[in-house]
């Protein structure tokens, strides 16, 4: 029983971080209808920002959220404006050029970081890195609990932003029906740029929160990109609430799979759920919750 509870807690806390990664992706995929295969790489860049701030200026990782998020927002804006939007105009046989562009961007980001920091493993050790508290015999990692709290806060904020504000409504409108949004006078170009920025800022937040408990390495983007799209498909495109469900589901599924099937099956479990959802619940949890 202890094992089961401990795993549940571990999966749930990890799921909080996944949710944050997923929300960024779901916004981008929902609004632009493309897969962003550079999502994890953008997160990696944010992690390096945090790492630099910590090791050269002694800034606490949580404080560096205030730098990493705006910085990545700008990076996202630049990418969307100058690299992805021009492709919409181009007449091509396949619409997947934008997806490939994100692959290229991911490569470039990884290599630029590698060029500057080399393939060294870096880590940020803070006073709370290994800190835990126990409830009964169940161990909770402080850093992950805090990360979970921040993730939930951002998700709630994002949800109200999308529902209540004009900009949020425009983003949702663009996601639902681009042509209709244009007819309603929404500047969809501007919306895509802002959305991409927001999505990157959110994944930057996830990356920063991950830094104290994980490590920093140029190649770590790829696996997180994969997780991001699994979460997005689980939750349903463009749905923030769905992304939370998706994130937590993936976190729990991975942890349970790793415990009862074996750690090597961790990734397979996530991928299998992903394929099953694609087949039997296309549209993800959004179909069930309708939010």
């Amino acid at each position: 029983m202890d094992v089961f509870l401990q795993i549940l807690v571990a999966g749930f806390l990890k799921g909080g971080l996944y949710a944050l990664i997923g929300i960024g992706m779901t916004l981008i995929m929902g609004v632009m209808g493309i897969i962003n295969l550079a999502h994890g790489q953008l997160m990696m860049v944010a992690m390096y920002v945090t790492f630099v701030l910590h090791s050269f200026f002694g800034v606490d990782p949580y404080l560096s959220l205030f730098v990493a998020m705006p910085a990545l927002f700008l990076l996202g804006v630049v990418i969307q404006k100058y690299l992805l939007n021009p492709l919409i105009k181009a007449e091509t046989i396949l619409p997947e050029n934008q997806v490939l562009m994100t692959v290229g961007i991911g490569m470039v980001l990884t290599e630029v970081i590698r060029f500057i920091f080399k393939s060294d493993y870096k880590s940020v050790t803070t006073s709370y890195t290994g800190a835990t508290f126990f409830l009964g015999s169940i161990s909770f990692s402080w850093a992950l609990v805090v990360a979970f709290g921040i993730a939930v806060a951002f998700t709630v904020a994002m949800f109200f932003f999308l529902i209540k504000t004009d900009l949020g409504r425009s983003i949702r409108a663009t996601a639902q029906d681009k042509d209709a949004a244009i007819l309603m006078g929404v500047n969809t170009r501007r919306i895509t740029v802002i959305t991409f920025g927001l999505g990157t800022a959110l994944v930057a937040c996830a990356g920063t929160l991950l830094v104290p408990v994980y490590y920093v390495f140029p190649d770590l983007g790829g696996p997180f990109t994969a997780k991001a799209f699994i979460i997005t498909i689980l939750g349903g495109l463009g749905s923030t609430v769905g992304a939370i469900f998706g994130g937590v589901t993936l976190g729990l599924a991975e942890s349970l799979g790793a415990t009862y099937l074996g750690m090597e099956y961790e990734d397979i479990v996530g991928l299998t759920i992903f394929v099953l959802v694609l087949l039997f619940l296309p549209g993800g949890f959004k179909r069930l919750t309708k939010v």
Partner: protein
Amino acid sequence: MRIVRKGLIGIFVLVMASFLCGAASAAEPIKVGVVLPLTGSMAKFGEIERRSFEMALEEINAKGGVKGRKIELVFEDDTGKPDVGRSAVEKLISRDKVPVVTGGYSSAVVAAAAPVAHQLKVPFVICTGAADDVTEKGYEYVFRINPTASEYPEATKSFLKGVAKVKTAVILYENTQFGQSSSKAFEEDCKELGIQVLMKEGYSAGAIDFKPLLTNVKAKNPDLIYMVSYVLDASLLIRQAKELDINPKLFVGGAAGFTLPEFQMSAGPAAEYVFSATLWTPNLRDKDYPGAKKYFDNFRARYKSDTEYHGAEAYASMYVVADALKRTKSFTPKDVRDALAATNMKTAFGPVKFISYGKKTQQNKLPTYLVQWQDGKLETVWPKDVATKKALYPTPKWSARK
């Protein structure tokens, strides 16, 4: 637009020129090919090895090189991928016409490149790639300086026999060539020692959360946890073992990540008491390891960063190759191979002699060591005759530590 056209033609001419320039090399220095992962995820170790090769090269050339000629190293980047590594070796052999190739970090690259060397009949002196079967195929032109993956836990084995007489063990390993083969070897060692293996499980490198794995380990409550992991997986494993309050009698790492300074930096105090197998430490005796300490200090002074056994392997390889080039009758690959086969020398990485035993051919056999993190320093603790500190055993419980 004319400019663009002219530019294109210019580039074409330059590329063509570059095709030819490889052939038009001066006859002066003797070229030695080195394949290493200089970019990509393994570049960190590739870089340590490249620097070590260059250090050894300068020392050799400063002493007059070989037969009055200087040695020149031709580095090729294998990016850690076997097909690229193969291209690189092909290029070294057929374009740069090197009489001998050395280097070889990743096991996969070595496995793909060794048959090339064998078929093109140019000797390949492997310094790091540890996959067992590379020297089990009877390749006449392939030599290996480092022990194979299955031999890494030798010192651990004798420590378990002599000091830490444990009953149960858990083996965790990363799902890579190195992880799979050395965990298998350790499982057999356990069988031999009468240690019951309660659990043997792999994971894919780069996991965020090892708690599922470790929670299972905790429930099994083993005496020994043996881990084959790279640097930061290693530190996450130890950190999370602490978080979950897992208390075996000893944690042992199977070389690779556990001996690096980054491990200690990232794991912090949790690194204390952790044992690791290793192939080399800087404080080995000069009798068998001449220049080990000097190499370590020089490297530090020169590059302001640490080196470890991978670097020593590279450093020693350069000396082995130079030694063979000094003794060879001529600089044809065939003669260099024969000279290499007759190698019998002592290097900073230990005595080197290519022998055949078991299924292996032209394989160097070396003892391995057990080290332990004590007060933030890596101390050699086994075998006794080279120990710098006494092994701290058993490991105190997490709650009993400061």
